C-alpha cells in the first residue's frame, strides 16, 4: 500500500527517479503515438498498427475504493498503510504454539519447514562464502515489516489469511523476540514494527550484472 503525496525522506533521489520514469513513460508515448497531449510521431516513429489506437479503448471499469481496500493488503518497510492492531511477545507465543509450531517447531528452529530463528553466525554475513548456512529471520531478513506482510498473506499454510491483524503483529513480536532482536516486553504495531532494525538490514545490494563479457 502506498500513500500519494506523503513526504519522502530522500527528495533528491525521488526527483532522480521521477526523471527516469518520465523518460520511460515518454518513450512509451512515442511508441503508441496517440496518447493525449502527445504530438503523433514527434521525435520518433509510431509502431506499426498502433497509429489507429484511440487515447483509451474504454475497456474495463473504474475500481472502487472499497474494492481496492479489500485487496490492498501489502505494506512496505516504511510502514505506510500498515493496519491498526497490536500484539505482544506473550500473545505471539500463544498464537505461535497453536498456529505455527507444527511446521516451524517449538523454538522456530526445528522445522520441518523453514527455520525462523537463529542469529549465527553473528560476525559478518558469510552466506556467499560458505555453503549451507541456515538462513533465518534473524540472520538473512532485511525488514521486519516483511514478517507481517508474509504471515498475513500466506500463513498458516493450511489456513492462509485466517489470522487477525493483532495475531499477526503478535506472531511477528514473538519471532523477533526469539531472534533476540526485540525485548520480551515489546509490543508490535503499525509504528513499532517498521522501526525495528533487522541484523541483515544493510546487507542487500542492487543487482550489478549487466551482461557483456564480465562474469559477476
Amino acid at each position: 500500500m502506498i500513500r500519494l503525496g506523503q513526504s519522502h525522506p530522500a527528495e533528491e533521489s525521488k526527483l532522480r527517479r521521477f526523471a527516469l520514469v518520465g523518460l520511460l513513460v515518454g518513450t512509451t508515448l512515442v511508441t503508441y503515438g496517440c496518447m493525449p497531449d502527445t504530438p503523433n510521431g514527434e521525435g520518433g516513429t509510431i509502431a506499426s498498427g498502433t497509429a489507429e489506437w484511440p487515447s483509451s479503448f474504454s475497456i474495463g471499469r473504474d475500481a472502487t475504493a472499497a474494492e481496492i481496500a479489500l485487496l490492498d493488503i501489502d505494506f512496505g518497510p516504511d510502514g505506510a498503510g500498515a493496519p491498526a492492531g497490536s500484539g505482544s511477545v506473550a500473545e505471539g507465543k500463544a498464537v505461535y504454539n497453536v498456529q505455527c509450531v507444527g511446521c516451524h517447531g517449538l523454538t522456530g528452529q526445528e522445522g520441518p519447514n523453514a527455520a525462523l530463528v537463529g542469529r549465527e553466525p553473528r560476525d559478518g554475513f558469510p552466506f556467499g562464502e560458505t555453503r549451507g548456512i541456515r538462513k533465518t529471520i534473524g540472520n538473512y531478513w532485511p525488514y521486519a515489516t516483511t514478517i507481517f506482510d508474509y504471515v498475513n498473506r500466506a500463513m498458516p499454510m493450511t489456513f492462509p489469511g485466517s489470522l487477525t491483524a493483532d495475531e499477526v503483529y503478535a506472531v511477528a513480536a514473538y519471532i523477533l523476540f526469539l531472534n533476540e532482536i526485540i525485548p520480551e516486553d515489546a509490543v508490535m504495531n503499525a509504528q513499532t514494527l517498521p522501526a525495528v532494525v533487522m541484523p541483515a538490514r544493510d546487507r542487500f545490494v542492487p543487482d550489478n550484472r549487466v551482461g557483456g563479457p564480465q562474469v559477476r
Partner: protein
Amino acid sequence: MGSISRRAMLGATGGLIAGGLLKTQADALTVAEESAGPQTAQADPTKMMGAPTSVLGQRAPGEQPRRRMGNPAVTSSSRTPIEELPGIITPADLHFERHHAGVPAIDPDRYELLIHGMVDRPMTFTLDDLKRFPAESRLCFIECSGNGGAAYNRNANPERSPGQIDGLFSTSEWTGVPLATLLREVGVGRGASWVLAEGGDAAVMSRSIPLEKALDDAMIAYGQNGEAIRPAQGYPARLLLPGWEGNAQVKWIRRLELSDRPSMTRDETSKYTDPLDDGTARQFSFVMDAKSTITFPAYPYVLPERGWWEIRGLAWSGRGRITRVEVSTDGGRNWAPAQLQEPILSKCTTRFRHVWNWDGGEALLMSRAIDETGYVQPDLETQIAARGEGTSYHYNSIRPWRVEPDGRVFFAQGDGG
C-alpha cells in the same frame, strides 16, 4: 485388448453410427473419446482401417514423457524432462511447476485484474476485457532462478539427467495483452517507478517489478501454446517477464499496484536474493544470464556403439539472442561452433547441434552459450570465483557430461568442468 479385437469393436461401432442407432451428438462424442485411447501397435497398419477422429488427441502409446516430481508436491516443484523433447516448445502439460501454496482453481467468470496505486485511474479488468485489448504473442523461456542448483557443486551427483538438473525451465508461445497497453489505459502516475505484482493463489505471491520492465516487454498472458494457460502456469492469466526469473512472473495475477518503491516482499528479500562472497546479497537479480546444456547424449543414455552421433542441446539468454554456442568433446581444450537451429529469438530457447564421431574412448562433452551482449557462459570455477561457493540462485555454469568407453554418460561436474 489386442489390436485385432479392438479393431473389430471399432468396426462394430462404425456400423452402429452408420445404421442411425446413435441419436445424439453427445453419444457420438462419447464413442469418439473412447476410441481415442492408446492402442497397441498393429502388425501391419496398411491392411486394416485406422482409428477414427477424436475430440481430443493423445500421445503415441510409447511416447509418454512425464514431469519429475519434487517433494512435498504442494509447495515444491515438478521438472520438465528437457532431454525427451525434440524441439524448443514445451508441451503445456510438461511445463515445469513451482508453486508456493499449490495450484488455485480460479473461476474465469469471476476473475478480475485490479491495477491501482500511483495511477491516474484505478481500474479493474475481467478476463474478457483482457482478451479484448490488442493482443500479442511471443515465444520465450521461463526458468526458475533456482534451476540447476544441483550443478553448483564440485562434487555433484553424476547420476543426474539434464531434466533433473535443469528441468525448472520450459519454453512456450505466450499470448496476451502487453502490460504497457494496460498501463496506458490506467495512466502511469508521476513518480511511479515500481509495480507490485500479486497472485490470487493461497500464497498470495507478490513481487516488486521495476516499472521500466513493465513498460518494456511485460505481458499479461492468457494463452499458452495455442490454448488457454494451464492452471499450473497461472490460469486464467499470469504476468510474463521475458528473460527474467520465473518467480517474478507472478501466476494467477490479480493485482498490480504502482508505487515509488519496492514492497520488499519475502520473495525479494529472504528468498530469491543471491548472497555473494563480499558479505552482501544481490537483490532484484531478475535477469537469467546466458546458459546452455547438452541434452543428448547425457545421463541416463548409453551410447550403443562408436561412430557418428549428433550432440544436441538447448541454449538461452534472458538478455537477448543467442549468437553462438560452442561445443567441446575434450573437456574444454578445444571448442567448435555448433549449428544453431532457427528461429533464434530474443529471450527464447535456441536449439544447437554438433555432429561428433565418437572413437569409443572417454570423452568430456561441454557446451557454452554466448549471447548478443557478448556474455560467455562461464565454467563453475569462474562462477564460484565471482560469487562464492555459498551463493544461491542463477546457476548458469557450463554443464559437463562424461562419456565412458562402455557408452555410459554421466554428469561430470568435478571432472574438470
